[in-house]
């Protein structure tokens, strides 16, 4: 009897945490054919923290984010945003897709891409007025791209493209920022600029979650970490979770090929 009582209490406490969490997923499973890309993933983001999702190639990191945002349909699982269903809380989430997922020869300018972040607010026919443009320019300035506003997006370097995507997310003025590999293939200056913006968001009380590849920078950049390999191997504050043992469990034999600085790994 006592044991069930304790279990009930624990479960209730977990439920309270989930209700308060900016983004909580439970039992999320996505499969391509009969092979699960992610299997029964539970994840509860901490408000006002930066969380890294880390794992080997094919671990389902991007899939997890996409399924959490309903970009791909999960086979099973529920998602809640601040305790409410996703459908009612879309405007509180900004998503930055992988840079390589779009055609950069698309006929559009930098400023137009950032204005896309205001489309929900503008609606179908609302006119883009001076304040909207000023807001978009402000977002470009925050990522150091204000001089590129009228360039065609194909003329940008990879790092600049990534910054424009971030500016579009900023324009949404969301509470949760979900980024899919924001540092993939970007130059050092861009990485610095992006991490500064993300830390600024966190310090303003926003919640940030990003798929991240460079294990060496995890402790520098992030507060929390989720180690994923189809299932969640470990999740929590970097100091407790980002350990040699957990990494070994997530990466298996492949850890030797991953660049890990032993000093950056706790314990």
């Amino acid at each position, binding site marked *: 009897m006592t044991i069930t009582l304790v279990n009930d209490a624990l479960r209730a406490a977990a439920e309270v945490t989930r209700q308060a969490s900016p983004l909580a997923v439970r039992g999320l499973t996505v499969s391509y054919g009969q092979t699960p890309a992610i299997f029964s993933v539970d994840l509860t983001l901490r408000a006002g923290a930066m969380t890294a999702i880390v794992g080997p190639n094919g671990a389902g990191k991007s899939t997890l984010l996409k399924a959490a945002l309903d*970009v791909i349909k999960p086979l099973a699982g529920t998602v809640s945003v601040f305790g409410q269903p996703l459908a009612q809380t879309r405007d509180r989430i900004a998503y930055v897709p992988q840079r390589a997922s779009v055609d950069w020869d698309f*006929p559009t300018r930098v400023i137009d891409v950032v204005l*896309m972040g205001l*489309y929900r607010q503008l609606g179908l026919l609302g006119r883009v007025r001076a304040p909207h443009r000023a807001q978009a320019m402000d977002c470009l300035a925050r990522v*150091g791209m204000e001089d590129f506003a009228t360039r065609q997006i194909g003329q940008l370097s990879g790092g600049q493209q990534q910054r424009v995507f971030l500016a579009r997310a900023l324009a949404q003025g969301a509470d949760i920022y979900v980024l899919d590999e924001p540092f993939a293939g970007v130059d*050092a200056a861009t990485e610095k600029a992006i991490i500064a913006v993300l830390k600024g968001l966190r310090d303003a009380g926003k919640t940030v979650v990003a798929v991240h590849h460079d294990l060496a920078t995890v402790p520098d950049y992030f507060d929390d970490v989720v180690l994923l390999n189809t299932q969640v191997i470990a999740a929590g504050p970097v100091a407790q979770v980002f350990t040699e043992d957990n990494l070994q469990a997530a990466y298996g034999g492949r850890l030797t090929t991953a660049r890990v600085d032993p000093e950056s790994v706790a314990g």
Partner: protein
Amino acid sequence: MLTDALLLQLGYNATLVTLGAALLGMAAGVAGTFLFLRKRALVSDAISHATLPGVGLAFILMVALGGDGRALPGLLLGAGLSAAVGLLCVQWLTTRTRLGEDAAIGAVLSVFFGLGVVILTVIQTMNAGRQAGLEGFLLGSTAGMLRADAILLAVSAALVLALVLLLRRPLALAAFDPAYTQATGWSLGRIDLAMMGIVLVVTVVGLKVVGLILIVALLIVPAVTARFWTDRTDHVVLIAGAVGGLSGYVGAASSAVAPALPTGPIIVLVGFALFLMSLLLSPGRGVLASVLAHRRYQRRVHMRQGLLALAQGQPIFEALTQRLMQRAGLVRRDGVATAQGQAAASKALRDETRWSIVRADSSFAVAATRYDGLTPIEDVLTPDQLAEVDARIAAPQVVL
């Protein structure tokens, strides 16, 4: 005669049909832009070929019910229904089987078209079928169009234009970044459905004018033509509308002069002429501009390499480099540098030295991204920064 037709001097009906075709061309150009940007251009080919069985069956049904088999609204209704079935088949094959969209399009297009041809052949053997004129749906024929038909054309085209205006933002968003669209809470499925619905209307209404074989050209050619002239989505849409409108106008007017000529091919040829002109002559993306820009760039690279070779006292091997430098008066015919050449060479070398300092120093990281081997460093750094760089050239820093 053609001038008369182009100036709308051939009577009320011909004028109405010409204006209707122009409006249809605009609608097709505008709607087709989003199809092109979404990279689903060929789906419209499947849709248009899938109209044929519907046309034939509608004819048979109307005759069987004792009506006039040639009534355009009835034929178009049949065309629309069978095109919708074809579209659903493409969607189903693409999403529910392992077939790719290209294979699905090929399968649906050929099967529906084959079925349509069989039905038309059957109709030829019917008594009422002899003068049906249904073959006009293959290549388009505006001859003999009634006033009511022209009005139907114009109203539908106007409806399409209004719908695209209303939905331009989600349509553009879905074409550029489908994942973001979905994540932001728009329904990608519904946006695509709306786009296909719009394309379906254009196709069905355009059947009589352009014909089902060539309607894909009226949807796609204006968009690819417009893409040569601008880097902005809204401008592509407007230019594509203009190109489509002009094609439809000229095509229908020519058809009024020479009723034996099928309208569709003329419309397509006008569009093609505009496309060809854009391909060759457009300032940004045109073939001519690309060739010129490439040659200009090549010359700058050769000049730069030549100057650096001079500065370092190395011989210049490439004939193009020698020729360019002689022409610019930088070297004499025997390959010895002129005074002007000496000055330019040492300037180039100093530039490179300055750049190498800038690129090695992380505090200049932003400026370093501007390095392309050609840009003068004065364009990138302030005089103060330059002075700092020069100080380091004069006195190499000692690393601790």
